[in-house]
C-alpha cells in the first residue's frame, strides 16, 4: 500500500509538463545517439551532465536516465540495417538482425526489438519498484566495512567480467582509483598530485575524463580506422513491420527469458547491458531445438538480447540508487551528477529524497511508453538519420565535447585534459585495456578510500573487521571467487603465438 502511495506521488511528479519535457528530450536524444553508430550513451550523458547542474536534480536525472535507456532502444536500428552496432550491447543483435534485413524482414526485426525492449524495460521497472525499497531498508544497517567490500566487488567484477583480459581490466580500475586521488585530500587538506596546477585542486573533472576516454577516444578510433558507415536507399514502412504468427510464437518465451536474464544481471554490481545481451543470446542458442537457425535471422536471436539489455539498464538503478554503488561507468557518471547536487545515493535516498526516487522510477515507465511511440510510428525518421555520413558528424561532436567540458568549470585546462584522456583512452583501448573500469574506479575511488579509512578507524586498525561482519564477509568472498576464477581462466588459456 505504501509502495502504491509512493508510486502515485512519483507519477504526480513525473507527469508535470516540465518533467515530461525532459523525459521526452532524454529519450529522443538517447534514440538519436543510439541509432547513430560512433556516439555512445556515455559520451552523450557526460555532454549533458553540465546542463543538469542548473536543473532540479529530479529533472536532470530523468533526462540522463532517458538518454541511457533510450540509447538501448535506438542501438538495434543500426545493428539490423547496417550490421554496425549503435552501441556495444547491440553488437549481438547484428548476428541475426542483419540477416533478417537481408531477407527483406528489417521492418519485422525493428518492430520485434522495440516491443522486446519495452517488455524487458517494464519488467525490470516492476522489480525496481518491488525490491529497491526492501534493499534500502536492509542496507540502512550497513557499516563502512560492508560498503567497502560491496564497492570492492563492483570494481573487481567490472574489471574482470568485461570483455578482454581480466588483468588489464584490474590495471585500469587501479589507475582510475589513483586518478581519484588527484586534488585536495578531504582529511588533511593537502594537495595530492596536483603538480602545481590550480585547476586540479578540486580534482580531475569527471566530465573531462568521461568525454576524453569515451567520446574523443571513440572518434579517434573511428577516424583512424577510416570506418565511417552510412546507409543508402533503405525504407522501412509500418506495413513491413507486421510480424507473422510464427514470429510472435518465437517472440513470447525468448522475450520473457531475456527480461529475466537482463534484470538479474542488472542488479549485480559490475555487470552491464553488454554482458546481459551476450548471455541472453547464448542462452537462447543453447535452448533452441535447431541452433543452426542462429546467425541466419532467428527471431529469438534479436528478441532475447534486446529484452535483456533494456531490463539490465533499468535494473542497474537498483544498486545505484539504493546502495550508491554503480554497476558500470554510465551509472558512475549518474552518481557523479547526483553528488554534484549534494545528493548521496544510498539507503537513505528513498526516505530522505522520496520525491526524487519515486519520480525517477515513474519517469522510467513514462519514458518507455514514449520510446514505444517514438520507435514505431517514427521509425522511418530514425532510418533516414542513418544516412547522415559519419564524416560530417564527428567534427560537430568534437565541438560539442569541447563546449560541454568547458561549460562545467569555464576552464580551458579541462578541455586540454579531455584531449589527453582521449589519447590515453585511444591508446589503451587499442592495446586491449578497457576504459570503463577506469571511470568506475575514478568515481568510486574517494568513496572506497573514505569507507576503508572509516572502517579501520572504528575497528582500531583491526583488519579482521572486513571478515567478521557477515555482509562484508559475503561480498569479500564473492570478490575472491571472481578473482580466483579469473586467475584459473588465465592459467587454462595457452600462450597465444601470433604471426609477426
Amino acid at each position: 500500500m505504501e509502495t502504491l502511495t509512493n508510486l502515485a506521488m512519483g507519477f504526480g511528479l513525473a507527469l508535470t509538463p516540465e518533467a515530461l519535457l525532459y523525459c521526452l528530450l532524454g529519450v529522443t536524444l538517447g534514440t538519436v545517439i543510439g541509432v547513430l553508430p560512433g556516439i555512445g550513451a556515455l559520451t552523450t550523458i557526460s555532454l549533458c551532465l553540465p546542463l543538469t547542474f542548473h536543473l532540479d536534480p529530479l529533472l536532470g536525472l530523468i533526462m540522463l536516465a532517458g538518454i541511457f535507456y533510450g540509447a538501448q532502444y535506438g542501438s538495434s536500428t543500426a545493428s539490423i540495417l547496417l550490421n554496425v552496432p549503435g552501441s556495444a550491447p547491440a553488437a549481438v543483435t547484428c548476428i541475426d538482425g542483419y540477416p533478417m534485413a537481408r531477407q527483406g524482414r528489417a521492418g519485422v526485426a525493428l518492430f520485434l526489438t522495440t516491443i522486446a525492449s519495452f517488455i524487458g524495460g517494464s519488467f525490470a521497472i516492476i522489480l525496481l519498484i518491488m525490491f529497491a525499497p526492501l534493499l534500502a531498508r536492509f542496507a540502512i544497517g550497513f557499516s563502512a566495512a560492508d560498503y567497502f567490500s560491496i564497492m570492492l566487488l563492483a570494481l573487481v567484477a567490472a574489471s574482470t567480467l568485461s570483455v578482454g583480459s581480466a588483468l588489464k581490466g584490474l590495471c585500469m580500475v587501479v589507475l582510475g582509483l589513483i586518478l581519484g586521488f588527484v586534488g585536495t585530500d578531504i582529511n588533511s587538506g593537502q594537495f595530492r598530485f596536483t603538480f602545481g596546477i590550480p585547476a586540479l585542486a578540486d580534482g580531475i573533472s569527471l566530465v573531462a575524463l568521461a568525454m576524453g576516454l569515451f567520446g574523443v577516444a571513440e572518434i579517434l578510433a573511428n577516424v583512424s580506422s577510416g570506418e565511417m558507415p552510412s546507409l543508402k536507399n533503405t525504407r522501412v514502412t509500418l506495413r513491413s513491420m507486421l510480424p507473422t504468427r510464427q514470429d510472435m510464437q518465437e517472440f513470447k518465451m525468448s522475450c520473457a527469458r531475456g527480461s529475466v536474464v537482463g534484470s538479474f544481471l542488472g542488479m549485480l554490481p559490475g555487470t552491464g547491458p553488454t554482458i546481459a545481451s551476450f548471455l541472453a543470446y547464448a542462452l537462447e542458442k543453447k535452448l533452441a531445438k535447431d541452433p543452426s537457425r542462429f546467425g541466419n535471422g532467428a527471431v529469438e536471436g534479436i528478441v532475447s538480447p534486446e529484452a535483456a539489455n533494456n531490463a539490465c539498464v533499468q535494473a542497474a538503478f537498483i544498486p545505484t540508487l539504493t546502495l550508491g554503488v554503480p554497476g558500470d561507468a554510465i551509472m558512475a557518471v549518474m552518481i557523479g551528477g547526483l553528488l554534484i547536487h549534494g545528493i548521496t545515493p544510498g539507503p537513505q535516498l528513498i526516505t530522505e529524497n522520496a520525491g526524487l526516487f519515486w519520480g525517477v522510477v515513474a519517469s522510467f515507465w513514462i519514458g518507455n511508453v514514449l520510446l514505444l511511440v517514438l520507435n514505431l510510428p517514427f521509425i522511418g525518421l530514425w532510418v533516414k538519420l542513418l544516412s547522415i555520413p559519419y564524416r560530417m558528424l564527428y567534427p560537430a561532436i568534437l565541438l560539442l565535447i569541447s563546449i560541454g567540458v568547458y561549460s562545467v568549470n569555464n576552464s580551458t585546462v579541462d578541455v586540454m585534459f579531455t584531449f589527453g584522456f582521449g589519447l590515453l583512452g585511444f591508446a589503451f583501448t587499442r592495446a586491449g585495456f578497457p576504459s570503463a573500469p577506469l571511470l568506475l574506479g575514478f568515481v568510486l575511488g574517494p568513496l572506497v578510500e573514505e569507507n576503508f579509512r572509516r572502517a579501520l578507524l572504528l575497528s582500531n586498525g583491526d583488519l579482521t573487521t572486513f571478515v567478521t561482519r557477515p555482509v562484508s564477509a559475503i561480498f569479500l568472498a564473492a570478490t575472491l571467487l571472481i578473482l580466483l576464477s579469473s586467475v584459473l581462466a588465465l592459467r587454462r588459456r595457452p600462450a597465444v603465438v601470433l604471426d609477426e
Partner: protein
Amino acid sequence: MLSRLQQFMPALVLALVGLGVVIGGSEFELGSLTAMGPGFMPVLLGGLLLLLAGVLLLLEWRILPTGAALPSARPLLCAGLSIVVWALLAERAGFVLASVAQLVLAYAAISQPDWRKVLYSSAVITALAFIAFVLLLGLPLPAVGW
C-alpha cells in the same frame, strides 16, 4: 624490436605510473591503519598498480608481438589537436573563430575533404552552436575576441 616496444608500452607506462605514485605518495605522511595519512592509500594503490603491471609485463613476454600497424598520424593529429586549438582560442579569439578553426581542422582528418562543403558546414555548425550555447544557455565566451 619496434613491435615488442609497442606491445610492452601500455604495461610499461602503467608500471611507471605506479612507481611514480608510490614515490609521490611517500612524500606525504603515511600514518597508521587507525589514522591514515594522505599518503597511505596512494602508496598502497601505486604499489598494487606496479605489481599488476609487472605481472602483465611478464605475461606479455610469452606472447610474440603481433606487429600491428601504427595508426596513421593525420586523422589522430587533426581530430585530436582540434580540441587543443579550441581550448587555446576560445577565451582569446572568441567562440566563433575557435569553433570554426576546430571544425576545419577536424574535417581535415579525413583524406581529400571537399573544402567548400567543409567551410559551409563549419559556418552552419558554429552559428547553431553559438545560438544554442552562448545566446540561449549563457556560456561566458565572447563571440569575437582580441
